[in-house]
C-alpha cells in the first residue's frame, strides 16, 4: 500500500501538465453554469410551495413505496379463510419489505394470538389486525422532531456513506427557515471530496450561512466553530453535518464521539437531536448501523431517506421493534420540500390505502 502511494506521488509530476490542461479548459465553465442552474432551481422549487403540491408529493412518494407491499396484502387476504398458508404468505410479504426475520416472526406471533382471542375467521379481518399491530408498534416509541426552547438548538446528522445526510440537512434547513428560524449549518464532512461544497450549494439555495473549514480539517474544530458561531450570531438552530462512515470503523466512530462531545461541551448541554440518516433501500444492516452509531453518539431518531423509490421501508418496523428508535422524518424526493414528519398512523394508513 505504501509503495503504491509513494509511487503515485513520484509519477505525479510527469502527468501534472496534462491534467492541468484538461481542467483549465473546463473549470471556468463549471462555475458559470453552476450559477445559472442555481437560479433555475430556486425558481423551480419556489413554484410548488402550495399545499396541494406538498400533499401530492407526499402521496406520490408513499404510493411508490406502497406498490407491491400492501396491494399484495389486500390481494391475498380478501375473501380467504385463515389458514397456515395465509400466515406464511403474510410472513413472506413482511420479509420482502425488509421488516426482518425477528420482527416479522414477532408480529406474526402476536397476530396468531389475536386471531385466537378475537375469534377472527376471515382474511380481511386479518388485514386490519396487521395494520393495527404495525401502527401500535410504530406509535409506541414515536416522537416528533423536538427542539428545546434554549437557543441555539443543536442538531447533528450522522450516518453511513451515501445515506443522504447532506441532502437531508439541506431540506431540514429549508424547513426550519420556513418556520422563521435562523439556521446555521456546519460542514463537518471534511473527508469526502467536495462534501462541503455540496453543503454550500444547499445553503445558498436555502439562504442560510455555513461554517466550513478546508478539506481534511479536524471535524471537531468545525463542530466547535459551528456552535460558537451559532451563539455569536444568535442563531436559533445549528445543524452539524458529519462525514459518512461505516459503523464498523472503530476509529471513525471514535472520531464521531469526539465531534459530539466537542459540540456538547461548547453548547453546554446535550444536542437536541442526533439524527441517524438511513437509506430506505437498506436491509438488515440498518439495525447494526443504529446500534453502533448510538454507541458513538446519543442517536435520538431516524431520518428515513429515498422513500420515493420502490423500497418498502419495512426496516422502520425492525428499528422500532428491536431498538425502540423513533423515525422522525422521511425523505420522499429530491426537492427542498420533500422532507416530511413521520406519522405512524398516516404512514401505515397510506401503506394500506
Amino acid at each position: 500500500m505504501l509503495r503504491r502511494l509513494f509511487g503515485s506521488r513520484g509519477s505525479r509530476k510527469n502527468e501534472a501538465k496534462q491534467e492541468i490542461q484538461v481542467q483549465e479548459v473546463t473549470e471556468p465553465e463549471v462555475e458559470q453554469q453552476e450559477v445559472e442552474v442555481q437560479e433555475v432551481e430556486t425558481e423551480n422549487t419556489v413554484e410548488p410551495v402550495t399545499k396541494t403540491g406538498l400533499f401530492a408529493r407526499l402521496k406520490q412518494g408513499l404510493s411508490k413505496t406502497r406498490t407491491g407491499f400492501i396491494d399484495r396484502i389486500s390481494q391475498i387476504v380478501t375473501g380467504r379463510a385463515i389458514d397456515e398458508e395465509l400466515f406464511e404468505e403474510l410472513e413472506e410479504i413482511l420479509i420482502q419489505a425488509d421488516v426482518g426475520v425477528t420482527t416479522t416472526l414477532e408480529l406474526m406471533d402476536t397476530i396468531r394470538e389475536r386471531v385466537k382471542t378475537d375469534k377472527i375467521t376471515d382474511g380481511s379481518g386479518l388485514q386490519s389486525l396487521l395494520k393495527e399491530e404495525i401502527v401500535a408498534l410504530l406509535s409506541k416509541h414515536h416522537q416528533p422532531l423536538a427542539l428545546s426552547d434554549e437557543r441555539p438548538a443543536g442538531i447533528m446528522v450522522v450516518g453511513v456513506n451515501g445515506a443522504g445526510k447532506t441532502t437531508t440537512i439541506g431540506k431540514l434547513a429549508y424547513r426550519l427557515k420556513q418556520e422563521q428560524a435562523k439556521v446555521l449549518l456546519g460542514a463537518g464532512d471534511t473527508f469526502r471530496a467536495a462534501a462541503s461544497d455540496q453543503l454550500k450549494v444547499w445553503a445558498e439555495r436555502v439562504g442560510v450561512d455555513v461554517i466550513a473549514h478546508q478539506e481534511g480539517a479536524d471535524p471537531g474544530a468545525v463542530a466547535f466553530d459551528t456552535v460558537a458561531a451559532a451563539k455569536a450570531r444568535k442563531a436559533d438552530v445549528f445543524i452539524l453535518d458529519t462525514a459518512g462512515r461505516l459503523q464498523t470503523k472503530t476509529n471513525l466512530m471514535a472520531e464521531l464521539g469526539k465531534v459530539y462531545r466537542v459540540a456538547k461541551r461548547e453548547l453546554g448541554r446535550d444536542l437536541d437531536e442526533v439524527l441517524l440518516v438511513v437509506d430506505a433501500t437498506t436491509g438488515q444492516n440498518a439495525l447494526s448501523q443504529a446500534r453502533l452509531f448510538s454507541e458513538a453518539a446519543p442517536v435520538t431518531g431516524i431520518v428515513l431517506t429515498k422513500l420515493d423509490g420502490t423500497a418498502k421501508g419495512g426496516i422502520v418496523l425492525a428499528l422500532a421493534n428491536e431498538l425502540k428508535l423513533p423515525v422522525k422524518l422521511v425523505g420522499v424526493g429530491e426537492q427542498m420540500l420533500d422532507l416530511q414528519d413521520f406519522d405512524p398512523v398516516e404512514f401505515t394508513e397510506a401503506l394500506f390505502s
Partner: protein
Amino acid sequence: MPFSNLTGRLQETLRKLRTRGKLTEKDVEAALREVRLALLEADVNYKVVRDFIGKVKERAVGHEVLSSLSPAQQVIKIVNEELTELMGGTQSKITFASKPPTIIMMVGLQGAGKTTTSGKLALSFKNKGHRPLLVAADIYRPAAIKQLIVVGEQIDVPVFSMGETNPVDIAKAAVAHADRHGNDIVIIDTAGRLHIDTELMGELEEIKNAVAPHEILLVVDSMTGQEAVNVASSFDEQLGIDGVILTKLDGDARGGAALSIKAVTGKPIKFATMSEKMDGLEVFHPDRMASRILGMGDVLSLIEKAEASFDEQKARELTEKMRQDAFTLEDFKDQLNQIKQMGPLDQLLGMLPGMGRMNQLKNLDVDESHLKRIEAIIDSMTVEERRNPDIIGGSRRRRIAQGSGTRVQDVNRLLKQFNQTRQLMKQFAGMEKKMKKGRGMFNLFR
C-alpha cells in the same frame, strides 16, 4: 447478534440428530431451516432463498455423509457449493474494446458510491499501465463534478468536465477528447437515479446510444435489502447492464444483495470495494462471498492475503528457526511487520469465521497502536537482548520501558507473549517432525 455464526448453530442443531451413513430428510430439513434464516437475515431476496433451499434439499437428501465431515459440515459444504455456483463461477473481467478507447458507463441509485468507485476503477487501470479518463456526467447533485475533479487529483487521473450541460453531450465530447489525447479507457460517472424515474432512465439510454459503451456497470451498495432485485432488474431491462460492482463491503453487511442480483439478472458481480481509500477496489470472488453471506467468515481471502504479503524466503527461514528453536524477538518483529502489511487489522479479523460481526470484534483489541508500542519496545532493546531475551532482567526492563515510552508492565507482557509464541512454535515444529503430513499446515502460514 442472532445469526453471526451459522456454522456453530448448524452444528448445534444437527448434533442432536447424529446421523451416520446417509443424510436423512430430517437432517437436511433441520439444517436448511437455519440456512434459510441466515440467508434472509443476510438480505437475500425471499424468492431467491425459496428456490435455493428447494434446490439444496433435493441435492442433499440421501447424500453420503463423508467420514471426515459431520452432517452439519456436509450440509454446509453442499450449501456453499450451490451458493458459489449460483453466484457465478470465477470472477469476471472487463471487456476491452478492440479499438480504444474502451468506454465504461457507471450507473446506479443515489448514494451507491458511483463517483468514488469510478475513481477506484480509474486508479486500478492506471496502475496496470492504462491511461484512463474520468468523465463528470453527474450534473444534478450539488458539487458532484467538483467531487470527481478532487478524486481525479488524488489519483492523478485527468477528469473531463463541461459543467452542468446535457450529459449526452458531455459523454460524446469526452469520447472525442479521449481519442485526441490517447486515453484508452473512458469512465463515465453518471448521476444517481431511481430505477423508476422514467425521465432520468431515458437519459441513460440516450448516453448509451450516443457513445455505445463497452461496459455498463451497475454500482450497488452491499447494504441494500430486498429492493436490490427490483433495482438491478430495472436497470438491466432498460439498459442491459454488463456487470455489477458491490460497494461498502468493508462494513458488516452480509451482502445478500449480491446473490439476489446474480440470481435474478444473471449478470456477474465484477468488483467489490472495501475501503474509503482509492486503492480499495478488489476483484470479486463468488466463493468467498458465499461464505460471507452464510456468516462463515472469509478464510480464503485471509489465506490469500497472507500469501501475498508474507515473504516466501523469510517464511522459510522462520520455519527453519522454529525447528531449531532459535526464534528471536527480531523475528517476532518481522512477523508483526508482515501482519501489518496485510492490511488494517480490523479488516483481517472480519475475515475470520464468526468475527464478521462487530459484537465479537469489540471484545478483541484491534487497536493498531498496540502494534506500534510493541515495535517501540523491541526497538529499545539491544541486539543482544533481542537475540537472547532471557538475559533481560529487572534493570534492563526498566531501561527498555523508559526508552520506548512504555511501562515495565508492557515490557513484561510482551516478553510473556513472546515466550508463549516460542512455546507454541516449538510444539508446531515437534508436530511437523512427527507427522510428515504436517507440511500442509505449514503451507497455510507461508
